[in-house]
């Protein structure tokens, strides 16, 4: 018997794996992919609660999150290309001019 709690625990696990990628990895491409993973985990919570409560409002909000994810990927990859053009690196620990 699969309950709402199963889905919430699964989504929490996936979200934490995304946080792990953002904190531990230095490659900016993998950091951006981890953010996409975290957004997907949040979508899973939306859908699970939508199914539990019997309304479709969660589906609409997932739609909005997907739009934000697409916009974020487009702008983020634009920033990565711009950084690579100027500094020849994709590692965030080599971009530290603001560190002082």
């Amino acid at each position, binding site marked *: 018997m699969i309950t709402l709690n199963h889905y919430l625990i699964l989504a929490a696990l996936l979200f934490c794996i995304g946080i792990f990628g953002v904190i531990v990895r230095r490659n900016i491409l993998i950091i951006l992919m981890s953010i996409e*993973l975290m957004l997907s985990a949040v979508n899973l919570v939306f859908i699970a609660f939508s199914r539990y409560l*019997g309304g479709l409002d969660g589906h609409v909000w997932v739609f909005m999150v997907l739009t934000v994810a697409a916009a974020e990927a487009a702008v983020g990859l634009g920033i990565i290309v711009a950084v690579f053009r100027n500094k020849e690196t994709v590692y965030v620990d080599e971009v530290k001019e603001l560190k002082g």
Partner: protein
Amino acid sequence: MNPILFYTFGGLAVVTALLMVTRQNPIASALWLVVNFFAFAALFALLSAHFIAVIQILLYAGAIMVLFIFVIMLLNLREEEIKPRQLQFSGLLGGGLVIYLIVLLVLGLLKIPAAPFEASTEGFGYVAPVGRLLFTKYLIPFELTSVLLLVAIVGSVVMGKRKL
């Protein structure tokens, strides 16, 4: 709510997510993330969110991941530019904190009483009811989405251009 399907696709999602964050080569990461998004779509379909499952494959596994792989190929990282993994203090600290967070979240979620799903109504999660809601109750957020997309288009053009 088939438990076998849930555990299959849930396990697949967790394993591919772990593989995604640990691969050294960004291309391998991106491909594991595509598999992960397919597992997510299967989970959405299990929750009778058919429209969102299709959108997940079309938009995430299709559009966004193609964009990622396109940019990785465009950057053309050579073998020697991909740094080997090294154990850093920040990495150890971050990994420890994440494990602590997982334990806290799972223990907290195990405390709440089990909430079983009821049988879904006919037509739940189809395109028509979601679309109807999108164009009536959520019309203003939906229209504001177009402004967001415009900002994203302008932003990516400004970022991508060498000289404005």
